[in-house]
C-alpha cells in the first residue's frame, strides 16, 4: 500500500526530481549555468519546441501521434513570412497560424474520415508540408521581413524575452482547456477508451480533428516565432523537431497510448530538453556525445516513469 503510493509519487513528480538533479549537476560543474540570464536564454530556446509539445500533448492524450509538426512549422513560417513581405506583419502572422491550423485540420480529417492511422497520415503530411515549403520558398530562405516582426522572437517585456511570456500564456490557456472544459475531459475519454467514449455520446471524430487542428495551429505559432528569431523563414526549419516534441511529452509522463498525461509535465519535459542542450554546451561536451547523453536521459526518464506503473 505504502509502496504503491511511493510509486505514484515517483510517477507523478519523478520528472521534477530529474529536473532538479540535472540543474544541480550542471550548476556544480559550471558556474555560469545557474544564472538568471542563462535561465532566460534556456527558456527562450525551449519555447520553440514547447509550442509543438503542447499541441502534441493534446494529440497523444487523445491516443494519436503527430509526426508532421516540424514540417508544418516550416510551411507555416514560410507562408507567414511570404505574406509579411508585402509589409503587413499582422496579416503575415494570421496567414502563418491559419496555414498551420488548416494543415492540422486536414490531417485530422484524413485520420477520421479515411480511417488512416495517425502515424501514417501525419507521416504523409510531414512529406507534403516539407515539399510544399520547398515549392513555396523555391528552396531559399525568405528574408527581408519587416523590422517590427523582430519583436515576437527577439523582443523583451521588462527584461523577460517575449517568447517566454507567449509560451507561458499558451501554456495556461491550453492547461485550462485540457483541465477545466468539457472538451478537455472528452480528449482524455477519447484517448482512454475510444469505444466507451463513443458509447457515452462523445463525438470522438470531432475531438480527434480538434486535437490535430490545435497541434497544427501551435506548430504554425512555433514557425512564426522561429522565423522571427532567425530573421528569416528557412526551408529546412524544424527538421527533426517532431522527435524533440514527442520526447518532451513522453518525458513529461504522458502515456504514449493515450488517456493520461499532464500539460505541466510537457512544459517541464521541454525545459529538460533545453537544459540538456544548454548545459552540455556549457560543459563543452563534444557534440557527438551530447546526442548519446540526450538519448540515455530520455531512456532513464521513461524507465523511471514506467516503473511507477502497475
Amino acid at each position: 500500500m505504502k509502496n504503491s503510493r511511493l510509486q505514484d509519487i515517483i510517477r507523478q513528480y519523478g520528472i521534477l526530481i530529474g529536473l532538479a538533479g540535472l540543474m544541480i549537476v550542471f550548476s556544480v560543474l559550471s558556474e555560469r549555468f545557474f544564472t538568471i540570464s542563462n535561465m532566460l536564454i534556456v527558456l527562450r530556446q525551449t519555447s520553440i519546441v514547447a509550442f509543438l509539445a503542447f499541441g502534441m500533448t493534446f494529440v497523444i492524450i487523445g491516443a494519436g501521434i503527430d509526426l508532421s509538426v516540424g514540417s508544418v512549422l516550416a510551411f507555416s513560417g514560410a507562408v507567414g513570412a511570404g505574406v509579411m513581405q508585402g509589409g503587413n506583419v499582422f496579416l503575415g502572422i494570421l496567414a502563418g497560424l491559419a496555414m498551420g491550423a488548416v494543415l492540422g485540420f486536414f490531417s485530422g480529417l484524413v485520420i477520421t474520415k479515411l480511417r488512416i492511422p495517425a502515424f501514417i497520415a501525419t507521416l504523409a503530411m510531414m512529406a507534403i508540408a516539407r515539399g510544399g515549403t520547398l515549392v513555396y520558398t523555391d528552396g531559399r530562405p525568405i528574408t527581408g521581413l519587416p523590422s517590427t516582426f523582430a519583436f515576437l522572437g527577439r523582443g523583451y517585456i521588462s527584461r523577460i524575452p517575449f517568447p517566454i511570456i507567449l509560451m507561458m500564456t499558451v501554456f495556461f490557456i491550453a492547461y485550462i482547456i485540457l483541465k477545466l472544459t468539457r472538451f478537455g475531459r472528452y480528449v482524455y475519454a477519447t484517448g482512454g477508451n475510444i469505444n466507451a467514449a463513443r458509447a457515452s455520446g462523445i463525438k470522438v471524430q470531432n475531438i480527434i480533428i480538434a486535437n490535430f487542428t490545435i497541434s497544427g495551429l501551435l506548430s504554425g505559432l512555433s514557425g512564426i516565432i522561429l522565423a522571427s528569431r532567425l530573421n528569416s523563414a528557412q526551408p529546412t526549419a524544424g527538421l527533426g523537431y517532431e522527435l524533440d516534441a514527442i520526447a518532451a511529452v513522453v518525458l513529461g509522463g504522458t502515456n504514449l497510448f493515450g488517456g493520461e498525461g499532464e500539460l505541466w509535465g510537457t512544459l517541464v519535459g521541454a525545459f529538460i530538453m533545453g537544459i540538456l542542450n544548454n548545459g552540455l554546451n556549457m560543459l563543452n561536451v563534444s557534440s557527438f556525445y551530447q546526442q548519446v547523453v540526450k538519448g540515455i536521459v530520455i531512456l532513464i526518464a521513461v524507465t523511471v516513469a514506467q516503473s511507477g506503473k502497475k
Partner: protein
Amino acid sequence: MKKLLLALLMVAILGFSAFAGNMTVGLSVSTLNNPFFVILRDGAIEQSKILEVELVVMDAQNDPAKQVSDIEDLIQQKVDVILLNPTDADALVPAVEEANIAGIPLLTIDRSVSGGDVALHIASDNVKGGEMAAAYTVEQLGEKGVVVELEGITGASAARERGEGFDTYIAKFSGIKLAAKQTADFDRAKGMSVMENILQAQPKIDAIFAQNDEMALGAIQAIKAANRQGEMFVVGFDAVPDALDAVKAGDMKATVAQQPWMMGVLGVMNGYLVVNGVELGVEFIPVPLKLILE
C-alpha cells in the same frame, strides 16, 4: 598571400612573447557530419594548441535554430572570441548582433552572414569554384557537348553559389547543353540513384558536374555500372580524400579543392589577433581554391 605570411609571422612573434594567459575561443560549426568541416575543426584545434588557447567547439547539425542557441550559450560562457561557420546567411544575423551587444568579437568562416558586425570573414569563393569547374569542363569539351549537373541540398548556400558560378559560365557557350540538373543532397547514395535515373533518360552525356565529391563518387558508381565511363567525365568539388584517390585512379577527371584545414587555422589565428587588439586592416581573407587534375 603576403598578408597571410605577415599574419603568420606576427603570430609567431606574439605567440612566444607578449600574450600568455587563458583565452577561450568558441567555434560554432554548421555540421560535423561532413569530413570537410571535421578537417576545418581539426585545423582549429591544432592552431589552438600552438597558441595555447582553449577551444570550445559546437556542432549546429545544420540547424540554424540550434546554431543561434549555440552562439547564445557561447556568449553566456563569456568566450573571448567567436568563430562562426554559419548554417545560413540571414538566420544567424540576430545571433551575431547578440555577440556584438555582448562585446565579443566574431569572425565568420567559409560562409558569410548578411548583417551584424563581423570582424573578419575567412572563406573560399564558392561562385568562383563553380566557375573554375565550368571553365575546365568547357575547355575539355571543346566548347561543345551535353552536360549534367548534380545539385547539393536545395537551399544550402554552397549549392546555390556553386551552381550559380557553374551555370552562369556555361550559359555563355551556345554549344554546351545542360541536359539535366537534379538535386542529390550532397549525398553519395543519392548521387548514385539520381545518376542512374539520368543515365536512363539521357542517351548521350559528355560531362557531369557534381556540386560536391560525395555526389560525384556516387555518380561514378552509377556510370561504371551502366558501363558508360568511356563516354563522359566527372568533375567534383571539395577534394575529399576519396575523391583525390578517384582522380588519381582516373575515375574522376578533376575536383575543386578548398582548404578547410587552412580555414580552421586562420580562424583561430586571426581570432587570437583580434582579441589582443591587433588591427587586421582587412575584412576578408580569401582561402585559395585550386583545381586538382589527374
